[in-house]
């Protein structure tokens, strides 16, 4: 067997086997489960890196396919497509999921669901790796759904918390909403094109073999799925709620890999999508709107994970903008894909740092962390700052290079509004990122009035968020009855961050610093050639300028000694409320669900079922009973009466018959 095929198969099968073994046999035994899961994630890691080095510089994609399901029109192949795009993503996924498994040893240690946690992580690893190297769209859809499933399981990991199980359900249903569009797109392609092979689709679209209407329709339908998975407006609402899951999960699924699957798909079938300018324009508009929206919400959040979640949404939107702009301007997919790569590193880092703080302080509120002395945790504090700088796009962090590229692509468009909006988004990003960093770095005195204000945070679903966080944080430090404490408690400074948690931080910080300088080799690998980027000085200056302006704004509001600790947005209360309420999109969906799905369809269909359909049947039954009862007056139970009736009728019939003769 081809060693590469074997490697691909192992990447998919090993974690699946680990999932099965843990779920069936060892879920009650944490150490054994951990061992199985680690083995099943380390081998794919090695395979991924080996393949990257062995295949560095391949020109032609390697494709392996087998029949998975052959019906008549529907033919689903199972196969692997190994090309630079999938190789890099494979490495990213394998690496980050391995790091997160290491990190979770510390973060999740002592949790009663430890075995289940690792089983779910393995399931995720399996489905994500399978997704990345899928050769056909339908196979990709299968793994896509499985990724959604593992996301559901992991978000609702602490299922006893109402908000967690609710968030899991929301994530699954909302992404499913998008996936239905995706599925319809696939159905259209199957019926009208006949094949879902990725390479074939890209080639056909590029060479005008498909009717434009089909490309546009199916591209937009597939984008529904992308929007669901990558949290684009208006179905981004699940991602912030998904932060109810354990923080390593947020880092792995909901920032670095799974949500990036949407953008990855966009890259994967980039030539196909780019063949429709209409679709590209719509995607660009949606992505831009998403970016602005999520950045503004990030400005007012007080939960550190919420801030990073909205930042994830905005960065994903930024990638989508880069890709769609490239599609419009006949550019390459490199800008968006490069940002995906760098983002994976620094966003995972941000979340893992947040996790380290949360683990230590037992709260998600970064004001509380600041007050409790968050900056004394040296390693997370340094790494989080590095990651924040990368997020803002400050040289020499990785984010600088990739953001520049995207802005450059946007600037290529004729309409300059997009690049201006992109710059505005970058400004907001810098502002909210450094709001967190400055608050953490420069706590105020204990009697500062701002503490009171940020101690309790607004929560949309009425469930004390801080309380939940305590639930999995410090079981003994705060009075509560949650069963899933981490089994370690106490705030002593002697207790730092365990090495299993700081090691991944350092590795990721390393990537964040190094990745940016790998731009040229990566581009050569991906595209076969590296084009010189004529980066205009104005754009470069304005990009760095807005980033610095954002940081400066944050310094004015939150950093300096005399800062008011009030966001500048406080000046416009109506707008602030609008942002805190998340642009009322959650309210809209809630209202939609309650009014239409539950209120109209469900309620009236049920009513119809009980009254009309069932009622009709019951009416028939009861009228039979009634008719029988009415007729039963004949049944007087006087036997002789019956007999009389009988003989008279019989005899009458007999006489009648005889008369004829």
């Amino acid at each position, binding site marked *: 067997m081809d060693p590469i095929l074997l490697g691909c198969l192992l990447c998919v099968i090993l974690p699946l086997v680990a999932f099965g073994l843990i779920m069936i046999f060892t879920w009650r035994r944490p150490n054994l489960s951990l061992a199985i899961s680690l083995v099943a994630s380390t081998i794919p890691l090695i395979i991924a890196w080996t393949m990257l080095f062995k295949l560095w510089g391949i020109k032609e994609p390697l494709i392996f396919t087998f029949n998975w399901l052959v019906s008549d029109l529907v033919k689903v192949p199972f196969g692997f497509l190994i090309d630079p795009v999938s190789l890099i993503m494979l490495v990213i996924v394998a690496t980050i999921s391995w790091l997160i498994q290491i990190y979770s040893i510390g973060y999740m240690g002592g949790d009663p669901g430890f075995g289940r946690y690792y089983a779910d992580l393995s399931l995720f690893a399996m489905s994500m790796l399978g997704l990345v190297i899928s050769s056909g769209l339908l196979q990709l859809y299968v793994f896509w759904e499985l990724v959604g499933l593992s996301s559901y399981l992991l978000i609702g990991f602490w299922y006893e918390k109402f908000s967690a199980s609710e968030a899991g359900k929301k994530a699954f249903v909302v992404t499913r909403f998008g996936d239905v569009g995706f599925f319809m797109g696939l159905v259209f392609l199957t019926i009208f094109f006949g094949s879902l092979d990725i390479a074939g689709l890209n080639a056909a679209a590029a060479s005008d073999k498909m009717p434009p209407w089909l490309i546009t329709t199916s591209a937009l339908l597939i984008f529904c799925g992308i929007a669901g998975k990558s949290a684009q407006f208006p179905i981004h609402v699940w991602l912030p709620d998904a932060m109810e899951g354990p923080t390593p999960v947020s880092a792995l699924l909901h920032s670095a890999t799974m949500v990036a699957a949407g953008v990855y798909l966009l890259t994967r079938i980039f030539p196909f999508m780019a063949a429709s300018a209409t679709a590209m324009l719509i995607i660009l508009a949606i992505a831009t709107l998403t970016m602005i929206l999520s950045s503004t919400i990030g400005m007012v959040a007080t939960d550190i994970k919420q801030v990073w979640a909205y930042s994830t949404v905005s960065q994903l939107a930024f990638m989508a903008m880069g890709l769609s702009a490239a599609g419009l301007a006949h550019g390459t997919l490199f800008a968006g894909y490069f940002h995906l790569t760098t983002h994976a590193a620094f966003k995972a880092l941000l979340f893992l740092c947040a996790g380290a703080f949360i683990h230590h302080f037992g709260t998600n509120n970064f004001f509380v962390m600041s007050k409790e002395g968050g900056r004394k945790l040296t390693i997370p504090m340094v790494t989080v700052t590095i990651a924040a700088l990368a997020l803002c796009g400050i040289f020499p962090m990785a984010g600088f290079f990739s953001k520049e590229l995207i802005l450059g692509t946007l600037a290529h468009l004729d309409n300059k509004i997009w690049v201006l909006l992109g710059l505005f988004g970058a400004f907001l990003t810098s502002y909210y990122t450094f709001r967190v960093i400055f608050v953490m770095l420069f706590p105020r005195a204990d009697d500062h009035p701002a503490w009171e204000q940020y101690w309790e945070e607004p929560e949309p679903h009425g469930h004390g968020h801080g309380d939940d966080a305590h639930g999995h944080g410090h079981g003994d430090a705060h009075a509560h009855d949650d069963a899933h404490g981490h089994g370690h408690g106490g705030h002593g400074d002697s207790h730092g961050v365990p090495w299993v948690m700081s090691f991944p931080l350092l590795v990721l910080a390393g990537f964040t610093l190094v990745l940016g300088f790998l731009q040229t080799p990566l581009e050569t690998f991906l595209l076969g050639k590296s084009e010189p980027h004529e980066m205009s000085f104005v754009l470069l200056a304005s990009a760095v300028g807005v980033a610095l302006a954002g940081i400066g704004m944050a310094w004015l509001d939150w950093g300096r000694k005399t800062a008011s600790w009030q966001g500048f947005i406080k000046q416009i209360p109506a707008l602030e409320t609008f942002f805190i309420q998340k642009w009322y999109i959650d309210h809209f969906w809630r209202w939609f669900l309650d009014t239409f799905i539950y209120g109209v369809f469900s309620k009236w269909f049920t009513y119809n079922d009980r009254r009309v359909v069932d009622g009709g049947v019951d009416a028939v039954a009861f009228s039979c009973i009634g008719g029988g009862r009415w007729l039963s007056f004949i049944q007087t139970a006087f036997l002789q009466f019956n007999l*009389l009736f009988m*003989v008279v009728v019989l*005899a009458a019939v*007999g*006489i009648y018959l005889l008369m004829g*003769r």
Partner: protein
Amino acid sequence: MNLLSWLISPPGVATVAFILVVVVTILGALIAVSARNIFHNVLGLVLALIGVAGLFLFLNSPFVAMMQILIYVGAVCIAICFAIMLSEPMYLPKPPRSSFKTLGAVIGAGTVFAFLVLLTKKTTWTPAPERSTDWSVTTMGHYLLTEYVLIFEVISLLLLVAMLGAIVIARGGRGAS
């Protein structure tokens, strides 16, 4: 005169006897259904049965006539007497007759009667072309055990089952001692 002489001739005697037997039968039947006292009913039945036995004699079957008396009069009527004694006491007041019911019964029975009369009238009765004349009891016994043995067996089985059934029903249901 002619009538008188005919009456004392053998056919005449036979005819008179026949009329007497018929009268006895019908009288007995009338008593059996109309008397208010249940014992009188049984006695009427006995009378009617004896009458029918007489008719059987006229029909050349002394054996069946004898059986009629033995089984009906000797067994069935006695069983009815027992039933009467085991059930309702005789001294209880009888419910009054309902003329409505009597009328209904007469109409019902009358319709059937009319139908059967019509049937009898309208049918032409043709004897079988070849008729055996062997009326001896021996032959009948022979037939009963050869050609009609199935009927014989069925009768035995029926009687057995009836006996068992009667015992079970009269015992007073399951569980009664």
